[in-house]
């Protein structure tokens, strides 16, 4: 009886918490269809005007293209580096494993501002490199490698080593072993790492703001628009599109990653 009541209280709390999590996020699409410059109640009439305005905005499209390019490159490079690191850390018993892992994970616990400024110091004051989308991409790779490594470690941990040894013993060379054994087992992790890194780079603002030079990425462009009240509805429309895109991407990534792995069996266990 007591347990029942406790469970109900918790369920109500969980529902309220989800409203707290999603409420602010879902306001953006709501007001992107509202026919008013001001984001305020009561709602006026329904309009697509802000979406039309967005589609005809040259700098916005340019920033979107820049962000897509950077995010795609960052996703591929970070995932390759993440796969290599995760493979080495899970497959081999390496001395110094803990400090190495700690170093790779360092960007998770350093404020993005400090990372951005540290890179800026090296690029501008020491190497004297011109800022461009490449410097943004370099910063994002540093930020995404921990994510990629974490995702791949969780995928490759508990990976049966004897499968690879069997392939080697049966005459496969290293390359064949990789393509026939390692890759098929690791690919859900690879896909989800690609998508997570893409999404992280696409949304990242702080590093991009410091390292982007003349070409703005999308978050940098959005930030520059927040100062002008008349641009607000356009930003809401853009934000809604980004939300929709990110949600689909991440839902897909999570679905791929958890398919057939620990969390999914954990999910099914009580049902059997």
């Amino acid at each position, binding site marked *: 009886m007591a347990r029942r009541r406790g469970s109900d209280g918790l369920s109500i709390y969980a529902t309220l918490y989800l409203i707290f999590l999603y409420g602010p996020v879902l306001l953006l699409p709501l007001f992107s269809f509202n026919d008013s410059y001001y984001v305020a109640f009561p709602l006026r009439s329904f309009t697509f005007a802000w979406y039309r305005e967005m589609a005809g905005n040259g700098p916005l499209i340019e920033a979107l293209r820049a962000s897509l390019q950077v995010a795609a490159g960052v996703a591929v490079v970070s995932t390759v580096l993440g796969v290599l690191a995760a493979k080495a850390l899970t497959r081999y018993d390496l001395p110094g494993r803990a400090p190495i892992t700690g170093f790779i994970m360092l960007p998770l616990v350093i404020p993005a501002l400090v990372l951005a400024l540290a890179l800026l110091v090296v690029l501008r004051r020491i190497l004297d490199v011109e800022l461009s989308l490449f410097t943004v991409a370099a910063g994002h790779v540093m930020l995404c490698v921990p994510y990629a490594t974490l995702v791949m470690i969780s995928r490759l941990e508990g990976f049966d080593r004897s499968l690879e040894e069997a392939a080697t013993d049966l005459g496969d060379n290293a390359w064949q072993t990789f393509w026939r054994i390692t890759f098929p087992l690791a690919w859900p992790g690879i896909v989800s790492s690609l998508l997570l890194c893409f999404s992280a780079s696409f949304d990242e*603002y702080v590093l991009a703001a410091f390292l982007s030079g003349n070409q703005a990425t999308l978050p940098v462009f959005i930030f520059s628009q927040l100062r002008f009240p008349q641009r607000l509805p356009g930003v809401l429309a853009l934000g809604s599109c980004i939300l929709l895109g990110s949600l689909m991407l991440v839902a897909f990534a999570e679905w791929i990653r958890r398919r057939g792995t620990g969390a999914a069996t954990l999910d099914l266990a009580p049902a059997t």
Partner: protein
Amino acid sequence: MAGRLERHAGPEGNARRSPGGRLRLAWRRSERLRGYVLLSPTLLVMAILLGLPLAALLLVSFWTQDYVTLDTSFTLANYAAIFDYAQSPIYLTLLGRSLLMSAAATAAVILLAFPIAYFLAFRVTRRKLVWIILITLPFWTSYLLRIFAWKVILGFNGLINSGLISLGLIHQPLEFLLYNPTAVTITLAHAWAAYAILPIYVSLEKIDRSLLEAATDLGDGPVKRFFRITLPLAAPGTIAATLLVFIPTVGDYVTPALVGGTSGVMVGNIIQALFGRMNNAPLGAALSVAMMLTVTLLVSALLWRGGRRRRSAQAL
């Protein structure tokens, strides 16, 4: 391990003649060598993009800015300026305020997140995956847009004010909602939720259910059981969550810039200004280093105390 080495020793017998063959042999034989080679590209990239910049930041913090040129002679002047409260109180004041605001936001995040993690671990039996995805999804949407949403909600002409006015509950917009430390704390508590829920959930999920049954059998009520079994065993996840939220938020500057106003300025804002319009990168670098050192010291003290308490608990 030994068995594998012997197994590989056979076919390579004839490779031993040439130097290249010897290298190949070493490669085949040494597990560790292969591991390090596999690790090297990632480590190299991280050394260049992370290690080198952090070292450079530390180095620059010992230089000084002489109007337009950098004076590269070693000096502790920047650190002296930061810790000289009588001359320039702003740095220590902002550092202290940032720590307080982050601590408040972290406490709010953990307190709000713990029941959700508990709910996920103990109450949700079916569709756990759906719940986990539901909770992590907003975390992957643009950070900037989530902060912006709070600005829209709390603003002078924002949703709370316009909503209350159109309902006739108030006649003048409430001014205390936006541009203060509370607005920053609320926004941070919302933005970092997933970082707290997941580690706590993992910790709770790992708890051996028979321990809980044992506590009940031995006469503990639900409340006593929670404080004697569940909470101590969830400590690792809760500590991890605290660190994952507290450390990065101390240096946040986007949130205070958008919703903090003048009273909500944090140390990140002045670091950014020092690198930008105040054109004093060395002082900014020194302030960054001082901020990270302070956070590291605080965190180490927290972990040390936690560790000591756990050890004394084990001794009992």
